[in-house]
């Protein structure tokens, strides 16, 4: 359980964005010094609001985006030194929207089999077809869909195609970026159950990027909370949901609307909206929205406190206030 499969060391990713006509360009620090480990067999949930950099992080892990500085290591080897082919064999994605992530002109069989063809695995067409059909069966896609096109399938079936495409390479790690956000609740539960079954059957390790905390609580074993490009808290799922430490994590958990009538809509006291990542606040970037901000939070970025419960980046803990 403790073997580190994928490791990020002080990873940064900067984008240059245009600030407007005649105003030149500015730097957007999408991922701002993230160190994180993905251990074999775990499901690491990565949560945060839109714009916090969680999808950028996922794309870097897939090798779709280079790091600006820092290093990503796959079993100790720098990702930069790993060929894309090799990486794709071991790390595969499942994206959010099965309506836009599947090529509408290809049949299901061709979509699922494409990774095999690209990587020259199972050169024999018959063997390739067999492997595709086996994988389709595993994820609950009837063989008759082999010649169907994505538009003939429902949302849930399309997401099963995406799962099959990811699994056909027999990868070790799957990066799931909002895998059920576009689906109806009854379909969402089918896909979540499928992801859990596949993880057990193929000994997979997941990075689950999601803004749905109830989904994360259900399938993640560990959770990392991201805010403005940094991981502000990291802990085992049960501990994080029982006793969140960072004020941001607490606000996030408080906004989850559980189906309990009579509780009303919670007031998160988050006040101002999400800051513009091009122009992050000084000190701790969360301080303008934080109910417990102290003078020091406006001046200095907090240092991380790592202990048995996990890791938290907040002045409340680093200074021993709590």
């Amino acid at each position, binding site marked *: 359980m403790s073997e580190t499969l994928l490791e990020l060391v002080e990873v940064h990713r900067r984008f240059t964005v245009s600030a407007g006509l005649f105003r030149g360009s500015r730097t957007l620090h999408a991922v701002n010094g993230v160190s994180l480990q993905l251990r074999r067999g775990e499901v690491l949930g990565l949560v945060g*609001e*839109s714009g916090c950099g969680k999808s950028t992080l996922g794309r870097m892990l897939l090798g779709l985006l280079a790091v600006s500085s820092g290093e990503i290591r796959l079993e100790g080897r720098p990702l930069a030194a790993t060929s894309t082919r090799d990486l794709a064999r071991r790390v595969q994605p499942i994206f959010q929207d099965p309506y836009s992530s599947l090529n509408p002109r290809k049949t299901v069989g061709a979509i699922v089999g494409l990774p095999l063809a690209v990587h020259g695995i199972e050169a024999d067409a018959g063997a390739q077809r067999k492997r595709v059909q086996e994988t389709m069966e595993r994820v609950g896609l009837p063989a008759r869909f082999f010649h169907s096109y994505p538009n003939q399938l*429902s*949302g*849930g079936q399309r997401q099963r195609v995406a799962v099959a495409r990811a699994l056909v390479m027999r990868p070790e790690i799957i990066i799931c970026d909002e895998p059920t956000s576009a689906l*109806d*609740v*009854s379909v*969402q*539960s*089918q896909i*979540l*159950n499928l992801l*859990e079954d596949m993880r057990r059957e193929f000994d997979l390790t997941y990075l689950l990027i999601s*803004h*749905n*905390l*109830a*989904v994360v*609580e*259900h399938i993640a*074993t560990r959770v990392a909370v991201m805010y403005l490009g940094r991981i502000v808290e990291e802990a085992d799922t*049960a501990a994080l*949901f029982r006793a969140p430490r960072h004020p941001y994590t607490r*606000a*996030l958990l*408080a*906004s*989850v*609307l*559980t*189906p*309990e*009538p*009579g*509780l*009303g*809509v*919670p*007031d*998160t006291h*988050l006040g*101002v*909206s*999400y800051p513009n990542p091009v122009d992050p606040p000084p000190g701790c970037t969360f301080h303008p929205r934080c109910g417990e901000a102290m003078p020091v939070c406006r001046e200095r970025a907090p240092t991380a406190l790592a202990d048995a419960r996990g890791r938290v980046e907040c002045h409340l803990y680093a200074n021993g206030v709590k």
Partner: protein
Amino acid sequence: MQVEGLRVDIPTPMGMLHAVRGVDLALEAGETLCLVGESGCGKSLSALALMGLLPRAARRSLSRFSFAGEDLQRAGERRMGDLRGNRIAMIFQEPMTSLNPSWSIGNQLEEGWLRHRGGSTALARERALHLLERVGITGATSRLGQYPHQLSGGLRQRVMIAMALMCEPALMIADEPTTALDVTVQAQILHLLKELQREFGMGLILITHDLGIVARVADRVAVMYAGEIVEQGPVARLFSHPSHPYTRGLLDCIPVPGRLAPGERLGTIPGVVSPPIGALHGCQFRNRCSEAEDACATRAFELRELSGGQRLRCRLAAT
């Protein structure tokens, strides 16, 4: 507002799609009714039908439609146009596509007021400013000159709400108002909506697929499946005694923090919705239902009164 026998039919190449099949709704002033169901169950089309905003090909029929004492069953486009954005307002899911990208926020806010109330632009601007502040937008004066693309999703939705409130509507219909937003912003927007509802005494019809939202916001709930209301009742009753197999299935499907032990499986509803096309017989949920019997294939069930104000359309209520 009272609606009876609302039907929406849309011709398709495969036959007539009966998107909404005999929906009755009643809403009192200040009350919140949630319409809940999955995509394609007809919840959004029901709302659009009431607003008179259906796609051209769709056909609407009603046996009764009254609003604030006025019979609207045969109201024409002109009368509906007078009510829309005035007495009845609607907010949509995706504020980016429902705001006009080439108009400033100020102009869009004022448009409805000027159309319905007339008077000077200065007065309309004053009202727009007041409402932008009321929905929690800071620096309202400078926002008036901005365009939708300059605002974040949460701010755009706040602008939509301010726009809907311009003429103090008696009824607000909100179609998935927070689906495109982050959880923290979602909580803020819903909090705001409830607060404004109390302040203005508005009736609110909230359309959503999120049972968490329903539980926290609704007074009454109507669960829709394939164009019909299959179960309705007061929110506490519906969550404590879900009676339709579909409602029960939906509640089992959603992950709730702390409810399941690690590794335990979520409930599922087998199969997929078959679209209500052509001649329909019996209960449309029967082929996904664990309680289905032969009678479900042929008999049409009425909504039957259970105890506690709950109503159920199912053979389980008939026996």
